[in-house]
C-alpha cells in the first residue's frame, strides 16, 4: 500500500538488516538449506543408514574403520556414532533435508489452500464465508499436535500422511489471516478501479488484493515452518512420523532414548539441531514482523 514510494524491497532489507538477531536467524537458515541440499556430498547415504556395528557408540570426535560399499576406510565421527555405529553428524545432515522439506511443503500447502479459502471468504462474504469460517473455527478448536496425531494414527504412519496431517492442522490460521486482510483491502479505491475496468473477480483477488495482504502471511509462514518442523519431529519421536532407518531428528531421538546414560551424545546433537533451526525461524519471523509491520514504521 503506502510503502511503495522508495523501492519496497530495498527498504525492507534496510529495516530487516537492523535487527541483528533476525539476520543471525536468516544466516542459520541459509546454512541449513545449504547443508540439506548438499547432504549427499558431505555424507554418502549408505553410510548413514548402513550399520557399522563395530563402531557403535563411538565417542565425539573419535575415528573408526567403516565399511563403505565393501571398501574399508578410516572415518572421523564428528558427533560420535549411534547404537548401530552410524554417524550422528551425517544422520543429522540428512535429517535436515527431511525437516526442511516437511517445513516448506506443509506451509506452502497451508498458505495456498488456507489463503485461497480465506481470500474467497473475505471477498465474497455471505453463506460461503460462514461455511468456510465455521470450518476454520472447528479446525482451530482441535489442538494442532493432537489433531495431527489423530490423523496419522488413523491413516497410518507414512511420509505422505505426515505431510497431510501437518498441512491440514496449519491451514486455519491462514484462512483467518487472509480473510481479515482481504476484508480491509477489498473496498479500497484501487480495487474499485480495477473492477470498473472490467477485471474478473479472480484477477482482482490474485493481482490486486492478495499482493497487498502478503505481509502478515509472510510473517506467519516463517513462524509456521518452525511449528511444522516441531510437529513433525514430535510425531516422529512418538513413532508416528518418518520411520527408521530413514534419518530424521525426531526418530533419531526416539531411537537413542534408551542410551541416555551410556551414550548421551546420540541425544544431545539431534536435539540441538531441532532447537537451532526452530530458533532461527523464530528469530527471522520476529525480524520480518518488525520490518513488515507498517504500524511500527516511522
Amino acid at each position: 500500500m503506502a510503502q511503495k514510494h522508495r523501492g519496497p524491497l530495498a527498504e525492507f532489507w534496510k529495516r530487516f538488516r537492523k535487527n541483528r538477531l533476525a539476520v543471525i536467524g536468516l544466516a542459520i537458515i541459509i546454512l541449513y538449506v545449504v547443508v540439506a541440499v548438499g547432504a549427499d556430498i558431505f555424507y554418502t547415504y549408505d553410510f548413514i543408514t548402513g550399520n557399522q556395528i563395530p563402531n557403535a557408540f563411538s565417542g565425539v570426535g573419535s575415528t573408526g574403520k567403516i565399511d563403505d560399499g565393501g571398501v574399508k576406510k578410516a572415518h572421523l565421527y564428528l558427533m560420535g556414532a549411534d547404537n548401530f555405529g552410524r554417524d550422528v553428524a551425517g544422520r543429522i545432515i540428512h535429517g535436515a533435508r527431511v525437516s526442511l522439506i516437511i517445513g516448506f511443503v506443509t506451509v506452502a500447502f497451508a498458505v495456498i489452500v488456507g489463503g485461497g479459502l480465506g481470500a474467497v471468504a473475505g471477498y465474497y462474504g455471505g453463506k460461503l464465508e460462514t461455511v468456510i469460517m465455521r470450518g476454520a473455527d472447528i479446525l482451530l478448536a482441535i489442538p494442532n499436535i493432537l489433531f495431527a496425531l489423530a490423523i496419522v494414527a488413523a491413516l497410518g504412519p507414512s511420509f505422505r500422511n505426515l505431510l497431510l496431517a501437518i498441512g491440514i492442522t496449519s491451514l486455519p490460521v491462514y484462512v483467518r489471516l487472509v480473510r481479515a486482510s482481504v476484508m480491509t483491502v477489498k473496498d479500497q479505491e484501487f480495487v474499485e478501479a480495477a473492477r470498473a475496468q472490467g477485471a474478473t473477480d479472480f484477477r482482482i483477488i490474485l493481482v490486486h488484493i492478495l499482493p497487498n495482504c502478503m505481509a502478515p502471511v509472510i510473517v506467519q509462514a516463517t513462524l509456521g515452518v518452525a511449528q511444522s518442523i516441531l510437529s513433525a519431529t514430535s510425531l516422529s519421536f512418538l513413532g508416528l512420523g518418518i520411520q527408521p532407518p530413514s534419518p530424521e531428528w525426531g526418530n533419531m531421538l526416539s531411537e537413542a532414548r534408551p542410551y541416555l546414560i551410556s551414550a548421551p551424545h546420540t541425544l544431545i546433537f539431534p536435539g540441538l539441531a531441532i532447537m537451532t533451526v526452530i530458533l532461527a525461524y523464530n528469530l527471522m519471523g520476529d525480524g520480518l514482523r518488525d520490518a513488515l509491520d507498517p504500524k511500527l514504521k516511522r
Partner: protein
Amino acid sequence: MIKYIIRRLFQLIPVLLGVTLIVFTLTYISPGDPARLMLPQDASDIQVAELKHSMGLDRTFVVQYVHFLFGYDGPGDSFDYKGLWALDLGRSYVSNRPVFGTILERFPNTVLLTMVALFLSIIISIPFGIISATRQYTKTDMAVTVAALIGISVPAFWLGMMLIWVFSVNLHWFPSLATPSNLWSIVLPSITLAAMNTAVQTRMTRSSMLEVVRMDYIRTARAKGLDEGTVIRVHALRNALIPVVTVIGLQVGQLLVGAVLTETVFSYPGIGTIMVDAIQRKDTPQILASVVFVALVFALVNLAVDILYAFIDPRIKAQYVGAAKKKGGLFRGSKA
C-alpha cells in the same frame, strides 16, 4: 451476564459437533477392519461379517456417527455403548476395559502435572518479564530475551530428556520416572512442560509492560512524584497484566496438550501415556476416545477462560455484545 454465558455455550455446540465429526470420520476412513482384527486369523468372511453386524460396523456413516454420539444397542450386549454424551465409547481392543474408564482414572494425574506447570510458569515469567521491561536494552534484558527465545524453540520432549540426563543421571537429584504419588518426581516434568509457556508469557509480559510504561498516565504518576517502584507496581503492572492473563488462560489448554509428549518422556501415568500406548498398540477406540476427550476439555477450558475474562474485564463483554447486535459492526469500526 447470564445471557452472554448462554450465548457462548450455544456457540460451542457446532464446534464440538465439528470436532467429534472430524474424529469420527478419521476412524471411519482408517484402513484396517476392527472386526477382522478381533477374530482369529483363519476366521471366515461370514464370521467377520457377523461380527461386523453385531458391532454395528455394517451401518451407514451417518448412522454410525449417531451411534458414536448417542450410543449403540446392537443385537448382542457385548458391543453396546452409551455414546460420547455419556462418556462411553465401548471397550479397548487391547485391555477390554471401558476406554473412558482408563481416561477418567488417569485424567487427574494430567491435571496435577498441568497445574504445577502452570504455577511454575506464572511465578517465573511475570517477574522476569517485568525486570526485562524495566531494564530495557541492558544485559539483564538481553539475557532474559535470549532465554525466552530458547524457551520457545526447544522441543519439550528433548528438554525433558536433557533434564533427566543432567539432574537424574548425573546429579541424582530427581528420579527419572514420574508418578503422581511422589511430588518430588513431578518437578522435572513440570519444568519441561512449563518451559514453552514460561517463555511465551515472559515475552508477553515484557512487551505489554513496555507498551504501558509509555502511556500518559504513567508519565502523570511519575510527574506527581511517586517513586519508580510504586509507579511500576500500582500503575503499570495492573494494566500490563491484562493481556498476559489472557495468554495464560489460553495456555492452560496448550499445557494439557503439551502434557502428551512430556508424560511420554517421564513415563508419567496420564492421558498422554494412554494415548501413546494406544497408538503403539493400534487400539483405535482408545486413541479416538483420548483425542476426543482432550479436544473437548481443551474447548471447555478455553470457554471457561473466556467467560472469566468477561467477569474480570467488562470491556470484553461490551465488545462482544456490540458485535453481536449489529453484524459486522466490529469490523467496520476497526477499519477506520
